[in-house]
């Protein structure tokens, strides 16, 4: 352990799901956040209701790193079933807190860590009545132990409990009693605080702790979405729950009680996307949220929306595949599926948010793009972004915002037309005009997935068919100018770069800082959308070696880059993380260092040229060894 661990360590809490540990964990994380210290919380939970192992990781980082750290300094082992693996995971010099009501000397035999036994169950059994209450308070009790060990502010904890139980004040007292039991026991029996401790900072002002699904739901609310159709699937469900919650708070007419939204639980994902398409076609902003299996089912309809040119917004909160996979673990494994969902020549606009803050803004942007381009827009979040608590800047809304409804003709405009022609490229940007039902008989058109001419009529004529298909490609080129740019950091100079997308971002930033400290400078491009804009092409062209970091086995993003840009395949090295846990910085650091030698004394003339040209045999790619992966090495 390094000397100064104040505000720089990771706690992991192992419990059994369904025992109320989530509230204790949130309480701990939030109290640290409110003390001004950057923090993140990640939940590694089973696909189960009650009784299986679950872990919660809290990383405290004075430097603001919010990725998974990859190591554990303090383990709270509350689950006898996972004791042995939990003990192994503690870093040398670390600590282990466990329930010593049932002592387990044999299991805990590690000389290089400090074991702190607390008789949590016994204390709770002596002080509380009822089986369920005892189980719940036992979890709150360990929060009290940690409060003493880490020197947390008890007043902050009371304040948070008071907010949580504003309507049930008696619960504040019983929770504080349990906290007190753990707190006092730790103070009496251990040297508190530990060297790992929390000290007040002021680095969280102007920030919030929010998960990506909640933020995306807020984005939909502010974009003016009125129709939400969905079929329940982990890990997307909380997005829809949040949207309904926000609508219930802000969209119910105070007088008539009428709901200014339709929230429809569909019979399956096929119906959910059908409803979104039907509502969008009829002039509402409509969306659905799902995960990979749902996208698979939606493929047919997505092709229809692409070809009939109907807007739709789809949130894909990616989880581990293939098939049912591991529903409560994270991956970026739908990159390819979303880009070309459906049969035939079909391609979709995709947005890749990196954190909850971007989920919020990109949600709103997705509706503008879908309506402007008259096409489905897929927002590819993932379980890590969607369901974990992230510290991000407070979300802001510009009151001057008005939805971009795209090229919709109103009654007066239709009236003036001699004839309405649905798929004609009048403006040369590949985007035709559309009309809504119920406006004017002259504006009527027939949406269909079968072959159609630029005038909207059924066709089986090759030329007429091709005119529409080519015009759709022109629209795709227009999309390139409208989608969010890549975020590029080229301050390191030189010709080595990292290319990535989505939730890898925080780990990459941390990795770059570590690499820089070791004398390796790398540039970084985070792609935020598909189709790729010109800046993506330029960045790829300007680098000799590019590490493509992504969270799937098949290097899907790398494949998309090679398909859709002019980049030479041999320049791309894949760093693939697909264990189901969020990517950590150490994985990236190791991956880069395996290919690139640190420059012990940077040359002033060529500071960034840190790539090792003399070791091409260690490089991955078509000519080299297989890519470095982290599959199966769940840590």
């Amino acid at each position, binding site marked *: 352990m390094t000397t100064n661990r104040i505000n720089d360590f990771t706690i992991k809490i192992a419990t059994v799901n369904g025992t109320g540990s989530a509230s204790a964990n949130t309480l701990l994380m939030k109290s640290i956040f409110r003390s001004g210290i950057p923090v993140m919380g990640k939940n590694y939970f089973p696909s189960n209701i009650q009784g299986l192992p679950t872990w919660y990781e809290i990383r405290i980082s004075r430097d603001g790193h919010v990725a998974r750290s990859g190591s554990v300094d303090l383990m709270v082992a509350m689950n006898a079933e996972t004791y042995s693996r939990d003990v192994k995971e503690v870093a040398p010099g670390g600590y282990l807190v466990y329930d010593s009501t049932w002592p387990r000397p044999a299991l805990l035999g590690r000389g290089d860590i400090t074991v702190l036994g607390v008789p949590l169950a016994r204390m709770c059994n002596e002080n509380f009545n009822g089986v369920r209450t005892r189980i719940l308070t036992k979890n709150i009790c360990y929060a009290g132990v940690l409060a003493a060990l880490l020197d947390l502010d008890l007043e902050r904890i009371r304040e948070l409990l008071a907010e949580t139980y504003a309507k049930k004040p008696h619960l504040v007292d019983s929770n504080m009693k349990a906290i007190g039991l753990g707190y006092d026991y730790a103070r009496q029996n251990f040297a508190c605080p530990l060297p790992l401790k929390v000290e007040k900072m002021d680095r969280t002002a102007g920030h919030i702790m929010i998960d990506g699904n909640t933020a995306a739901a807020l984005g939909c609310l*502010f974009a003016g979405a009125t129709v939400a159709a969905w079929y329940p699937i982990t890990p997307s469900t909380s997005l829809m729950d949040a949207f309904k919650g926000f609508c219930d708070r802000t969209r119910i007419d105070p007088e008539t009680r009428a709901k200014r939204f339709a929230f429809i639980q569909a019979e399956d994902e096929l119906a959910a996307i059908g*409803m979104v398409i039907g509502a969008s076609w009829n002039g509402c902003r409509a969306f659905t949220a799902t995960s990979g299996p749902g996208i698979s089912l939606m493929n047919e309809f997505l092709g229809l929306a692409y070809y009939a040119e109907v807007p739709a917004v789809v949130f894909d909160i990616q989880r581990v595949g293939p098939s049912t996979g591991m529903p409560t673990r994270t991956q970026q494994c739908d990159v390819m599926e979303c880009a070309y969902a459906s049969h035939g020549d079909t391609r979709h606009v995709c947005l890749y948010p990196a954190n909850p803050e971007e989920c919020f803004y990109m949600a709103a942007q997705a509706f503008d793009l879908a309506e402007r381009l008259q096409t489905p827009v897929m927002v590819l979040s993932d379980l890590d972004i969607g369901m974990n608590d992230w510290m991000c800047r407070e979300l802001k809304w510009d009151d001057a915002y008005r939805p971009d409804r795209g090229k919709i003709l109103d009654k007066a405009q239709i009236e003036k037309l001699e004839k309405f022609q649905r798929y004609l490229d009048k403006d040369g940007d590949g985007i035709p005009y559309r009309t*809504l039902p119920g406006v004017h008989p002259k504006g009527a058109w027939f949406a269909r997935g079968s072959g159609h001419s630029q005038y909207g009529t059924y066709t089986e004529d090759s030329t007429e068919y091709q005119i529409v298909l080519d015009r759709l490609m022109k629209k795709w080129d227009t999309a390139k100018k409208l989608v969010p740019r890549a975020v590029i950091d080229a301050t390191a100079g030189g010709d080595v770069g990292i290319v990535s997308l989505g939730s890898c971002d925080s780990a990459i930033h941390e990795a770059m800082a570590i690499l820089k400290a070791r004398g390796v400078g790398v540039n970084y491009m985070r792609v935020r959308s598909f189709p790729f804009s010109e800046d993506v092409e330029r960045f790829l062209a300007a680098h000799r070696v590019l590490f493509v970091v992504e969270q799937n086995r098949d290097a899907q993003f790398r494949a998309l880059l090679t398909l859709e840009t002019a980049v030479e395949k041999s320049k791309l090295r894949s760093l693939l993380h697909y264990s189901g846990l969020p990517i950590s910085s150490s994985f990236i650091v190791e991956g880069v260092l395996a290919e690139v030698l640190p420059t012990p004394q940077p040359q002033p003339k060529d500071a960034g040229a840190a790539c090792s040209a003399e070791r091409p045999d260690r490089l991955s790619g078509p000519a080299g060894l297989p890519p470095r992966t982290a599959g199966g090495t769940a840590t």
Partner: protein
Amino acid sequence: MTFIAKPKVVHPSLPRNVLGLVRRDYEGALSTLCAGCGHDSITAAIVEACWRGSIEPQNLVKLSGIGCSSKTTAYFVSGAHGFNSVHGRMPSIATGASAANRRLTYIGVSGDGDTLSIGLGQFCHAVRRNLDMLYIIENNGVYGLTKGQFSASADIGSKAKKGETNFQPPIDPVLLAMNLGASFVARSFSGDKRQLVPLIEAGLRHRGFALIDVLSPCVTFNDHEGSTKSYAYTREHYEPAVQADFVPPEREITAEYGAGEALPVTMHDGSRIMLRKLDEAYEPTDRAAAQARVQERLRSGEYLTGLLYLGREGDADGARPEFHQINGTPEEPLNSLPYEALSPGSEGLAKLLARYR
């Protein structure tokens, strides 16, 4: 297929409806179906019903899936928007469209393959949601576009054109819809315009899900001897049980109906359905009794037709809240709400974020 293009000129003597429109204003593109196809008769009945009902063309929304029947939405009311969606998925498009604008009139045209095989799930759920639409099944027991495979409505013992016999029991959409709580369930025959037109008129006005299963023979693949969906077989085995005449609010009930002969049912918009029993034993406003009778006659190979079940307001197991009532949406269509009524603004955002600080 009809090859003769119709002249555009409207003769001044043609009758006009309340909106001043002639029947021709409710027509669509030329049909590309086989000559003699039952579906074309249904299209003609829809044109007649829309004209009689004085529906503003732009306020009608036509929805369909895939198949011969689904093509027909292009053949009527060209002034209405149409959506020819994907196979078996029309109900979900209709659900979304209805959610966006509750003021329009939704008509879905589907077939027995589209509804009872690939789209069975979506059909059932549209009934459960009591979606405010008229859903017409053009039922011919066969897959036409793919040349003659049995559909899920083919009867046991029915013979395909190529000779094989069907041994699987049919799925009957009428019984299914009654079971799932539909409040307007009818069966008719494409060859019986007198029965069909008022059913479509009433179905278009009915609040909630209205089903009309129309037996509509396929002249090319299912009109042979041994088929139970041929013209000849249908004419012999269809049995009108309840004649439903539609009387719009502006028209008075004529003396044609003697006391006790017809049961008037007033609809939510003031129009009336006059139910006239042709089968004395039939009870069209009693769900359980109607179901039992339809099933009993089906067992003897007879198709009861007419408005087979009408759930009235106030009847036990009668009319249920429709989709928008269930969802509590406002009277004005969701797609007409101004952005200001939807966004809580920056101040609202700050309030919503309080618990995340």
